[in-house]
């Protein structure tokens, strides 16, 4: 029996290798493919910029944060957005959380928790999805979530049951 396709904008073989835990029933597409912004921008609702501390300096990165692919740099970048480090990804009433994935300490991806506890992710140049768990995107491409941050959830966000942005 063949698996239903993931339809994420890359080949099925590649998608299944990159996200071996992802199942069609565990996520929903919430945007078309758009290479104008990425996961790190998506978690702070910025769809006009690509956030990343690339050494070539093509992309946006908060000026007060180190421009290096380190967890410390990401923590500093999101501190500019009023996020502070926390211990877990568990849903906490009144707080919006983000999870930073890394491989060998090098950040690879950022996801943001939605009001109901699901997560929203922008997959690089590809689509936005909401997914049931952080483990859905764990694997050889993104590694695992290793750093969690939170900030008080804005009032308008708490009134949305399943908003994604």
């Amino acid at each position, binding site marked *: 029996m063949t698996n239903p396709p993931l339809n994420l*904008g890359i080949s099925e073989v590649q998608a299944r290798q990159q996200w071996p835990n992802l199942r069609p029933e565990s996520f929903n597409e919430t945007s078309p493919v758009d*290479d104008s912004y990425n*996961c790190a921008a998506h978690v702070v609702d910025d769809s006009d*910029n*690509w956030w990343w501390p690339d050494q*070539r300096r093509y992309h946006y990165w908060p000026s007060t944060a180190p421009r290096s692919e380190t967890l410390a740099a990401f923590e500093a970048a999101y501190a500019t957005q009023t996020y502070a480090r926390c211990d877990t990804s568990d849903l906490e009433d009144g707080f919006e959380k983000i999870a930073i994935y890394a491989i060998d300490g090098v950040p690879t991806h950022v996801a943001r928790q939605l009001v109901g506890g699901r997560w929203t992710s922008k997959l690089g140049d590809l689509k936005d999805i909401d997914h049931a768990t952080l483990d859905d995107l764990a694997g050889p491409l993104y590694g695992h979530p290793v750093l969690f941050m939170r900030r008080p959830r804005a009032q308008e966000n708490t009134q949305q049951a399943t908003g994604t942005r």
Partner: protein
Amino acid sequence: MTTRTLPRRATGTRTQYRSVISGNASDIHGVFSGPAVSPDSSVVTFRRADPLREQFRTLADWWHDATDALSSLDAKAEHPAYRRIIVLGPSVLRYILEDLRDRGGHWFAALEETTGIQPQMPAGATPNVRSERHAWLAWGREQGLLD
């Protein structure tokens, strides 16, 4: 696009097309998009795909597939397919620009490395992926590399 005219007997599968063509066969590693038969002709015209375009397309497909889900530009630009495209040099500029136009992606480092220039951003434009793409595509049209 180069074309080649063959006797009508040259019909059949792609494999057969390859076997029929003689002469400079070493440059045939693309795919054929023909045959096209003209109604009043006794010949079949084969349109041979541009080998360099095919090589670019193979590398670009690999690169997109492997890195489109990544955010790190450094990881994208260090992918072996991307490096091999840069090695192909200015002869693939047109294909890079077409891919940027048609499929998007972070071709900016390759374009800069290949041309040695940075395109003029539109006045007042915020530097981001959209404006960078717009500037490169405008440059490509100015250079006659894009329609």
